[in-house]
């Protein structure tokens, strides 16, 4: 199944190659469950492209973050997107970072991507992976000390288990069959609601424990396609200085608070911030709360309609309900 979609993807790219500057997609990484982004610039490299549930990265940041591939006049940059990634592309268009006619969007319906750490947990001691294959909703891993079969659902990323937009919301071509979401839309914020029912002490304890693991590597920030301050983030600014360099909970909380607030009403819940965290801190959860609020107050979801202006990027004196 995956090899078929990969084949179709490569054929599609072959056809559009003459009109595009480059194609941003995924290729195999250092083993079969670790896929990495690739920028294809010549026909000879098209065979590197793959698609399977290990294609975790949201590639849309590469369209805007320096040194991005900038298309020459009259040409476009092609990008492979899953459902969640397509919302980031729309959000970037909404905010004026990207022009729709500069990009060619290859949409791929996605039934969920794999959390490699969840796979490693199941392998116990051994961790050299010889082969990995996903078939009929199960992952089969051949590793140094045997074979493990795991139902796919048990190793999906948290973001995927709560995804309601598995199909690209914007695209120039779609590869693969439409898939249905894992959850109903009304359940999108049930984790947030459940968490809010906990006492203040419990919630404080949860965040104190998880955030104290943060090493401030800023992977969450840099992986976010919409964190566009990049090199001028207040987390590292010295003058004026907003956040200290102390690795204490107070400063860590301050950074994550700022990070999340800057994404209020903009975050498309692609979950990259959480996926890339080497310390497995569920940082998207903070943004989920803000999105739940945005939805309640403004009936707005980020990255769906490129004609809308995100609520906090505009000012309407007649705004009601706040």
């Amino acid at each position, binding site marked *: 199944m995956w090899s078929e979609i990969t084949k179709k993807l490569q054929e599609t790219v072959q056809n559009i190659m003459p009109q595009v500057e480059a194609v941003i997609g995924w290729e195999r990484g250092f083993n079969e469950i670790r896929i*990495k982004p690739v920028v294809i610039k010549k026909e000879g490299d098209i065979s590197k492209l793959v698609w399977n549930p290990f294609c975790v990265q949201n590639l849309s940041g590469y369209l805007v973050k*320096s040194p991005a591939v900038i298309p020459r006049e009259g040409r476009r940059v092609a990008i492979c997107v899953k459902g969640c990634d397509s919302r980031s592309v729309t959000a970037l268009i909404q905010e004026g970072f990207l022009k729709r006619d500069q990009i060619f969007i290859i949409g791929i319906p996605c039934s969920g991507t794999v959390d490699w750490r969840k796979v490693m947990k199941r392998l116990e*001691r051994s*961790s050299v992976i010889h082969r990995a294959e996903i078939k009929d909703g199960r992952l089969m891993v051949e590793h140094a000390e045997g074979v493990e079969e795991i139902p796919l659902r048990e190793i999906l990323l948290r973001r995927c288990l709560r995804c309601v937009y598995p199909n690209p919301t914007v695209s120039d071509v779609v590869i693969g069959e439409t898939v249905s979401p894992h959850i109903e839309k009304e359940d999108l914020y049930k984790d947030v609601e459940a968490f809010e029912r906990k006492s203040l002490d419990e919630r404080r304890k949860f965040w104190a424990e*998880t955030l104290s693991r943060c090493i401030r590597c*800023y992977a969450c*920030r840099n992986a976010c396609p919409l964190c566009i301050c990049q090199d001028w983030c207040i987390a590292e600014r010295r003058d004026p200085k907003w956040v200290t360099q*102390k690795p204490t909970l107070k400063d860590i909380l301050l950074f994550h608070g700022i990070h999340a607030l800057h994404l209020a009403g903009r975050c498309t819940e692609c979950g990259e911030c959480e996926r890339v965290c*080497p*310390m497995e801190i569920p940082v998207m959860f903070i943004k989920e709360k803000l999105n739940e609020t945005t939805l309640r107050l403004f009936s707005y979801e980020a990255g769906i309609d490129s004609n809308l202006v995100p609520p906090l990027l505009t000012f309407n004196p007649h705004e009601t309900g706040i």
Partner: protein
Amino acid sequence: MVARRKEKKSQNRIFIPLEGLNQTLENLSKHFTVWVPMPSGENEWSLEFKPLHRGCKILLDRQSTLPPKKVILPQGQTLIEYEYKKSESDPSKQDLVLREVIDESPIIVFGTRPCDVRGFLVCDKVFLQGRYIDVYYRARRLNTLFATLFCREADDACFCSSVGSGPADMEGSDIGITPIDGGWILEGLTDRASEIFSLCDCEAPDEKQIEDARRVQEEVRSMRVGNLRTDGVLEGVKGQFQNMELWRDIAESCLSCGVCTYVCPTCYCFTITDEPQGLRGERLRSWDSCMFYQYTQEASGHNPRPTKLERYRNRLGHKFSYFPLRYSGMIACCGCGRCIRSCPVSIDIRQGVERVREAHHGCVCS
């Protein structure tokens, strides 16, 4: 009793049974701060070194996500505390009171791997050699002992044997830990080990256990982890320095985050900031990353490494070229593979090195 103690003091090997590990280390923790690898959270995959506490879950069966680097080089280390006080001699003036903070408390890091310790051997060159000795680093380094595992847990990101080390490399370690059936054999490698053993309250291993350990060590010694070739890279980085197409190929997908540098046992770069709180404050040394734009931002406004391409070139170049050129050929990479495993976009430094090597040899040949 006295006789037994005496005998224990002279022993060079002890056996710790599986179920006795926590107790043994708790005994040690009365005299030392004992750092052990344990899960970062309840259900998390990531492991990190933390000070032992009663009942904690010690995990020795795989490499930790974060190296024990912070034991010697804390992520945030107070160098000086300062306070402005009203001057006693002249009430119209303030006195500045300074206090240097040097931590000399004794530490044991238990369950390191050869790559972890190799990281400190690299850092030693920088902090302990030459004209300037770093007193903060030295204080911690001299008071820290390492009990290191003969490592059987190499995975597909490991390549320690390719960079001058190996899974049985005990250089820099004070105690070697050999996992055998039913427990671990600890073997003294430096004079400091016997003091530890006398505090452990453990039995000496029997003949069979010694034989088992010998066999495990032999097996580990015969392993070659990784097949990276580094010949030509020393000169290659210099030769390819301006070949930005090459560096774009290698680092185009880089996110410019600090994961690789923060999980790296040999990345030692730091920044120094003053962190005031009213009339008092501290001068803080904290981890910095050459992957960050601000790292090379100059006061003039110029930045010699304006994009991730120059920054990645620096990371690879520093480890495989500039550092070995300065420190008699020592590669500033311990081959632990952490940067490969934890990279959000799976950038493989081995591949980068290989590309530089190919480009270099290509140049030489043509």
